[in-house]
């Protein structure tokens, strides 16, 4: 598993992506949006053979699951 992308996202302020899906390759956000399929499609095109880290940035409300 690519720890570099995990380390990178742990240090990022993601507030501008609130409520959005994001994909990270080579420690950088390479795609973002509301549709996870599209975000992953874009990430695959940009990331080459690297496995992207894909996650949804919580929208900011209190979460109760």
């Amino acid at each position: 598993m690519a720890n570099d992308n995990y380390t990178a996202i742990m240090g990022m302020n993601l507030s501008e992506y609130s409520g959005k899906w994001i994909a990270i390759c080579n420690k950088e956000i390479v795609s973002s949006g509301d549709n996870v399929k599209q975000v992953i499609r874009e990430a695959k095109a940009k990331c080459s053979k690297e496995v992207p880290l894909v996650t949804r940035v919580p929208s900011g409300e209190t979460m109760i699951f």
Partner: protein
Amino acid sequence: MTLTYKYKTIERPELPDIKAPSIPIRIIAESNGTSFDTLALIDSGADVSAITKDIAEILNLNLNVPETTSIGIGGKVRSKETTMNIRVGHGSETYTFRVPVMVILDHIDFNILLGRKGFFDKFKIEFDQDKQKVSLKRNS
């Protein structure tokens, strides 16, 4: 050895930041699907892990199973139970196994939740809210 992860900060524009016990995992796609890494929320209140329908389709999971109903704080949702392969850890502390997962068919966007069935029985999990970290020790 124990896997330890710091809670992930969630910035909230008009509210204080909060921190959540998310861990990095790799979801390994079924044939023709797309594997990817993600941050999964460890949810001791969830009977079973949960993902969105979009994620299930990206991974090419088997959805040829009966539809059922799941219930959460927001009410009832349509769902299907299947399984997915996940990888947790790094280096010599890497564990790959199959977990049951509820695919939520209604359109709700959320990060992957790791629930108790098939996951909590594999690790001793410790939540340290004061130190903002979660630890996982593989059960022998």
